[in-house]
């Protein structure tokens, strides 16, 4: 544990030694992937801020219950008002006003209470709130997979460009070292906070600002990783990363549009 912590710190300080050690180790990829998963899970902790909302939000049965009590209250008020005005109504209409209040208090409330029983039966067997927690847990566990799915296309393109420019690293070495770029992402935890209140929106904006710093730090680690994995110069690594960015986000979309227009028109 202590060794892992020391290694993690050394990666953040951009020391060459841990990069070389991971590159040469048989279990280098396993170590890098574990680091990726742990950091992604910590990063995803921001999602748990929404737990309060998830638990506090009324269930459908509770909403129906609230509505039933409101209707009952309104019905009683109307009945009372009707009783108060019965003298007046008898004087002007020849009979007292009756019916609306009792219709609300008896019939509508009865219907809503029945509906509430049916709605409760529709709820998940585990209960609404525990189910929300379980699903939030699943969503949190998805964070590493989602981040990795976003990270893979870029890193694979970097690998191809590096190889075309004479890089000598293997696929395992490349993946092991480039995965280390996730190391500073711990600071980006605030970007995962859902914007459900003013304070959380402020936290999110601050998180985005912080993530800029994190992005630069990750880029520095990525540069070092590509340099060591493929045994090339730092300048070449920078050009490879720029090249990969240009291909993925500029050239590829343009090429897709051109190919589509060539096929269709």
């Amino acid at each position: 544990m202590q060794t892992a912590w020391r290694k993690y710190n050394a990666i953040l300080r951009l020391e060459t030694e841990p990069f070389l050690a991971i590159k040469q180790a048989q279990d280098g990829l396993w170590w890098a992937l574990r680091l990726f998963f742990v950091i992604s899970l910590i990063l995803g902790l921001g999602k748990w801020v929404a737990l309060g909302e998830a638990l506090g939000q009324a269930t459908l049965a509770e909403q129906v219950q609230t509505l039933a009590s409101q209707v009952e209250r309104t019905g009683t008020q109307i009945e009372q008002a009707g009783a108060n005005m019965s003298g007046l109504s008898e004087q002007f209409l020849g009979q007292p006003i009756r019916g609306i209040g009792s219709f609300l208090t008896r019939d509508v409330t009865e219907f809503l209470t029945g509906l509430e029983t049916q709605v409760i039966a529709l709820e998940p067997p585990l209960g609404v709130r525990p189910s929300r927690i379980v699903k939030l847990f699943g969503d949190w566990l998805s964070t590493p997979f989602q981040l990795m799915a976003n990270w893979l296309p870029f890193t694979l393109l970097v690998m191809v460009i590096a190889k075309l420019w004479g890089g000598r690293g293997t696929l395992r070495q490349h993946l092991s070292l480039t995965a280390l770029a996730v190391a500073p992402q711990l600071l980006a935890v605030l970007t995962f906070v859902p914007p459900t209140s003013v304070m959380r929106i402020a936290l999110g904006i601050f998180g985005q600002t912080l993530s800029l710093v994190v992005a630069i730090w990750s880029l520095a680690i990525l540069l070092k990783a590509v340099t060591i994995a493929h045994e090339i110069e730092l300048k070449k690594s920078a050009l490879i990363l720029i090249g990969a960015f240009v291909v993925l986000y500029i050239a590829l979309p343009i090429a897709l549009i051109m190919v589509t227009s060539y096929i269709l028109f």
Partner: protein
Amino acid sequence: MTEAIVAPIKLAEALRLAGQALLLDDRAYATVYDAKYPLRRGFTILLVILLTVGVALAIGLALDIVVTPRLDLVETAVFETLTETTWYQETSTQSPDFATSFKQLYTVAWQIAYMVGQAPSWLGTLTGFLVTLIVSLLSWFIYGSLAYGIGRWLGGQGNYQQFMGTLALAYAPKLLLVAMVIPGMTLGGIVAWWLLLTKYQAVKHTYNLSWERNLAVVLIPYLIIGLTLFGLLLFTVAYGLSQVPGLDTAIRFLSFIKQ
């Protein structure tokens, strides 16, 4: 060749090799490549991987049912309401088979809704598993045969049995689907991306070509399969449209005006 290699592979051993392959470990590919019957060994590992996924999907379904609103009750309630309508009563009196057909149609419609809405259902899970099983086995065979041909054409030396056996091991990323056992879990396309990596490793280990050729062997079959599927879809739609009366005449008229 030792007896151990010839003997049928054990479950734990198959999963261990799949785990190693998932981490792109060359030793796993070497074990299958050097086996006496690499194709049989690889195929057994592939089946173990797919069956493990099947078991996980079944457990996942049970957990999903526990945390999802009781849609089966809605299904029953809607059915009861529909059967109480005058239309239903009259039609069932006029046609005795109507009730049975209606029930069947209603059940199928709900099962489709469950699948489209990704709601947990036994039929949906079974269909999903069977589709995964058949598609994985078919893609292994078709993709593998294409990749084998391309690999040989580009100068690769491995034989068909060795290649297909090693490629079967490359389906190890399917094991990641086991994580779907947890409700609310999504994998975000990681399986497809990681399959590319394991296939690259399998091709590299079998053919020992340059990295560019290895990449070509991995990617060209996708291109061929993609083009074939695109062509099939295009011509199916075109055939369907060509049956619409007057459409061909309208196209001829439009091209005449254009000229």
